[in-house]
């Protein structure tokens, strides 16, 4: 059995498992949580591609997530566009913004790019909170209608479960193909050395901008769906705590593989649920900032003791197992 074959088998098992899950679990609790997993996984996957594959140290993923949510939400709540058109329009707007911001910012590298995108995170959060007439300010945007496409209205966790996981797996599939294409190889090359990449006729700024805009659009789609799922958004949902959560997912899962962040988001969201269920009695005020304590400790522990994350650990385990089997056979 070659490695490609086994790989696709694992994916089939994963997808079948996901498809069967809503029918075997009682109630909507598990499905609801898995919706969150899907949204976060999409976002974390895009961010991991930027951070690890392309070496673009951008922390702007929550910003584009939030912009996607707000643009689609405002358009739908004010009944300017139907929700499905709002999602597409939001993606276009975010793509334009990412292009305009990315063109000058991606000339920066390392810490400076991180600082600039970190600043962007706060700028957007404060701007959303301050422009109260349009966005609802600190209290959040209310009155977002449910998502409906050609007369079919999505209601409840069950529908959103399938939509969000289709989006997540679609993004994964897209990134997987992209990284195995000419574009992906170019991106990997410029991660290793920009000078070497440009010496073999890779247009470094253009490829960087391309992957930056692509991940921003993915984040925007996830954000738009997220706002229709919750029917409610506040600026603080897209701030620093979300960034910490995303970093935790990427670190837990390991960013060297594409499925790492998905694994990370499954672990992280269920961990968050476990914290909320079991520590409710001990810690009365459970906010995103309190969750961030656990995630922060987790990031530090994993970076020190298991730098490759879960995916790296699993890979090593599989390698070890194969060698063991090969020897015994």
């Amino acid at each position, binding site marked *: 059995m070659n490695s490609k074959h086994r790989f696709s088998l694992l994916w089939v098992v994963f997808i079948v498992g996901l498809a069967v899950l809503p029918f075997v679990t009682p109630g909507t609790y598990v499905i609801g949580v898995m919706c969150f997993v899907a949204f976060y996984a999409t976002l974390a996957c895009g961010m991991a591609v930027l951070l690890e594959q392309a070496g673009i140290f951008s922390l702007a993923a929550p910003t584009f997530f939030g912009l996607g949510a707000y643009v689609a939400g405002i358009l739908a709540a004010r009944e300017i566009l139907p929700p499905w058109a709002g999602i597409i329009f939001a993606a276009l707007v975010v793509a334009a913004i990412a292009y305009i911001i990315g063109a000058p910012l991606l000339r920066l590298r390392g810490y400076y790019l991180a600082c600039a995108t970190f600043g962007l995170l706060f700028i957007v959060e404060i*701007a959303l909170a301050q422009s109260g007439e349009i966005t609802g300010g600190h209290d959040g945007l209310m009155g977002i209608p449910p998502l409906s496409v050609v007369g079919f209205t999505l209601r409840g966790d069950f529908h959103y479960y399938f939509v969000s996981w289709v989006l997540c797996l679609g993004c994964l599939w897209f990134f997987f193909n992209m990284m195995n294409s000419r574009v992906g190889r170019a991106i990997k090359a410029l991660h290793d050395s920009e000078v070497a990449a440009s010496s073999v006729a890779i247009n470094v700024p253009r490829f960087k901008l391309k992957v930056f805009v692509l991940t921003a659009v993915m984040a925007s789609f996830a954000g738009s769906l997220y706002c229709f799922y919750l029917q409610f958004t506040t600026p603080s949902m897209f701030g620093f705590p979300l960034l910490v959560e995303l970093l935790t997912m990427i670190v837990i899962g390991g960013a060297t593989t594409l499925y790492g962040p998905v694994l990370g988001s499954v672990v992280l969201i269920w961990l968050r649920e476990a914290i909320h269920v079991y520590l409710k009695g001990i810690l009365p005020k459970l906010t995103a900032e309190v969750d961030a304590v656990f995630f922060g400790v987790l990031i530090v522990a994993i970076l020190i003791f298991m730098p490759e994350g879960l995916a790296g650990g699993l890979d090593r385990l599989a390698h070890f197992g194969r060698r063991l089997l090969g020897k015994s056979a």
Partner: protein
Amino acid sequence: MTLLSETVQYAISGITAGSIYAVIGICWSVVYLITKVLNFTTGEFVMLGGMLTWAFHTMGFGLPSSVLFAVACTIAISMLLERLVIRPIRFPTEMTYMMLTIASASVIKGLVLLQWGSESRRIEPFFGSGVIHFFGAGVTPQVLCVVAIMTLITLGLHLFLNHTLFGTALRASAINQTGAKLMGIDIGRFRLFCFGLAGGLGAVTGIVTAPITFTGYEIGLLTGLKGLVAAIAGGWSMTGTVAAALALGLLEGFGAGFVSSGLKDVLALIVMILFLILQTISFPGLRRR
């Protein structure tokens, strides 16, 4: 209020803010230059200073002793951070450093929130609450105290870095680590010292500003970021940082006064982004070597 007195008032608040950003900016650059870690917990040290002083003070300690305890605790925390979080990393990259410090910042912030709640806290002003009038603008003694202490810190650091053996060694290891090691300088100890210094200075800043602006668990990040803006705009040098911080403070003071106080935080961040972008653009004929 006349335009003159308004202008003076905004200038005073700008200079106060600027002197605070200057010291915070120095905290960032001291750590960055020696350890190459962009320490996102800097702002949390500022917050910790204020909050710990408040906590010790409400526990019944006098103001001077609670200030002392708070500074000592913050220094200890920041040294522990270097020892337990930054140093054990085997293959450090800029990205892991940044993730580590962001994670530590969120841990500190969350723990403070858990322990002392989300209310804003205030320390009593050190020298009473009278108002000194000046061109029709009011200045409280606390503001003068802040500016004086920040100036003293900056001058003291300048003297320390340029006129003592230890300071010279610090500068040397910032310029060339390998060279410094070859001259028998213990870099590991210096890294610890730099974190301690940044923690201590941050704590002092947080304490002296706590009577003017309220302190609370969430002030750390934005205050810290503004210091970072000053450090980046000042090119990580001390004089540059001070100049940039004062300019930033004045810009913020006038921006908040004449434009909108809600968007004054955005202003500093936009300045940072514009500055970073401007650095990358090389104009023909102005090319750097």
